[in-house]
């Protein structure tokens, strides 16, 4: 629909609810996206992600076999160029935060309108971080939690710059990027970059933590991902 003259964005849909999966796939196709796969199970999706080469993976947070967090991790391991957009019905909770820490690029509620959803996929494809106010609140809380953690962790903890914190607070109280840009006299792009940075910091910190954990427990770094997914399976159960 926009001015993507070249090849259409390749999207993979992972959702166990058949009605939703079909509706989402149809909406995407009608909007000009190339839906390369629509799959109901996480494990199956991880098997085909290498072959289907999606640019964007739209994944439900609750899947019958593996959690959305593990899907996120698995997708990014198989195809680092892909961007994962998390879709969920239940609202913002710990599992959304876990998915973002695992590298998800954005999050949107299922109650969003079709236009909002398509816009979110489009923005995810172009490299934006798709935030809801709820996600911003979770991310703010997570940075505070990391900073006030045990002394040894506090040193390694990532911190938000004042500007990033200010912008996240604005997102969390319902302001759009455009409104924020207007208030702070910044470009729309700059606001987006700040928001994107906060997620990258969390993701990087999470990866560093996994590696540290693996080394401390006598596992080599390549086992870190597996350890991490086992750990998050615990929180998802």
């Amino acid at each position: 629909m926009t001015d993507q003259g070249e090849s259409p964005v390749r999207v993979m849909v992972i959702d166990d609810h058949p009605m939703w999966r079909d509706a989402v796939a149809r909406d995407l196709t009608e909007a000009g996206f190339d839906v390369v796969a629509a799959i109901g199970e996480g494990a199956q999706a991880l098997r085909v992600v290498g072959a289907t080469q999606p640019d964007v993976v739209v994944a439900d947070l609750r899947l019958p076999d593996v959690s959305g967090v593990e899907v996120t991790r698995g997708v990014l391991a198989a195809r680092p160029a892909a961007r994962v957009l998390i879709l969920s019905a239940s609202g913002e909770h710990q599992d959304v935060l876990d998915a973002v820490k695992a590298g998800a690029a954005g999050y949107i509620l299922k109650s969003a309108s079709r236009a909002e959803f398509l816009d979110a996929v489009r923005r995810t494809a172009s490299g934006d971080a798709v935030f809801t106010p709820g996600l911003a609140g979770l991310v703010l809380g997570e940075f505070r939690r990391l900073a006030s953690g045990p002394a040894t962790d506090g040193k390694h903890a990532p911190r938000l710059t004042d500007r990033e914190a200010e912008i996240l607070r604005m997102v969390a109280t319902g302001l759009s990027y455009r409104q924020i840009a207007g208030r702070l006299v910044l470009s729309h792009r700059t606001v987006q970059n700040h928001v994107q940075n906060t997620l990258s910091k969390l993701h990087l910190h999470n990866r560093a933590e996994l590696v540290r954990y693996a080394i401390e427990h006598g596992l080599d770094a390549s086992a870190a991902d597996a350890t991490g997914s086992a750990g998050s399976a615990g929180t998802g159960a």
Partner: protein
Amino acid sequence: MGFQAPLWRAVAAYRFASLAYATILLLVDRGNYARWPWAWAVLAGMAAWTAVTTRIYATPAGRTNIMLATDLVVTAAALLSTDLVQYGSASYVGDMPVTATWVAGPVLAWAVAAGRRAGMVAAIILGVCDLVLVHHTFGHLFAGADLNGPVLLLLAGWVVGYVSRLAARAEYALQHATQVEATSRERDRIARDIHDSVLQVLALVQRRGAEAGGEAAEIGRLAGAQETALRTLIASGGGQAAPFDRLPFGELDLTALLARENSAVVSVIAPAEPVRLAGETAEQTVLAVRAALDNVRRHAGEGTHAWILIEDEDSLVSVTIRDDGPGIAPGRLTDAAADGRLGVSHAIRGRIRDLGGTVSIDSDPGAGTEIRLRIPRASEKA
């Protein structure tokens, strides 16, 4: 198993202790015995029976009615054998029978196995044997302290039986509670799955309805309202105490309390972990937030969106209420406060000041209003 096992061990311990006592008495009261060696034979029999009962009563399968009856008969026989081994005169001066306190064994066993009534029945049977032994004629019955033994037996049967039933009931209650807990945990898990499915369907109906227009749009709107309501209900723990039970006594999770304000036009945004506040402080904060939301509805109109951001900053908790309404003209707030008209002054500022916190209000015409409440953790109340 459970609470019964210690009681049976106590019965066995009682028998061994009594056996030791009977042995001492036999050594000391040698003069009372006409056939002293035979008395030792009776004692040997008692020792053997103590070993047998200890062994058999140790497992639930051994605690049969036949075993209990045999126990009573054997003990009664040992008691009555006193008549054969002691001098006839010994009975009249109130000496102990050869079994001494060992005689209470079956009373305790019956009481533990079947409760007070059974314990008292066993006590009466053995008590009658004891009295028959001592008093060959009814006339001497109330002469000495001879009734003490049977009465003590009766009381022991009653008390131990009572304790045994109490233990059984406690065990049942504990088992029941464990079952209930397991069931409710499983139900919670199923409920989460079902809620998620229902939310998905409601969101889908809302979306399709809005696109179809007309009557379907109305259905979609209704589905949307229910979707928000259900999500709110889940977020606030379904109105149960669930979100609170992990918190230290007297503290509440501000997120769970404020989650009830969620609606189609109000979004509550919070960190993933509970935001703990002392109960009273949390409740006052909720009232202040409600006052702020009332203001939004009253002054900015029904359709105005509001966001409530809860932030946990270690020493203080911050709650920001922002709306996208028309905003308040500069000076109007202070004017209103001076007139005592606006709720902001009293319901919000007053409450938060009492908690030792601060309120800042930021508003520009056309840019909505932002009220930020900062509430200290260790509240310094005046």
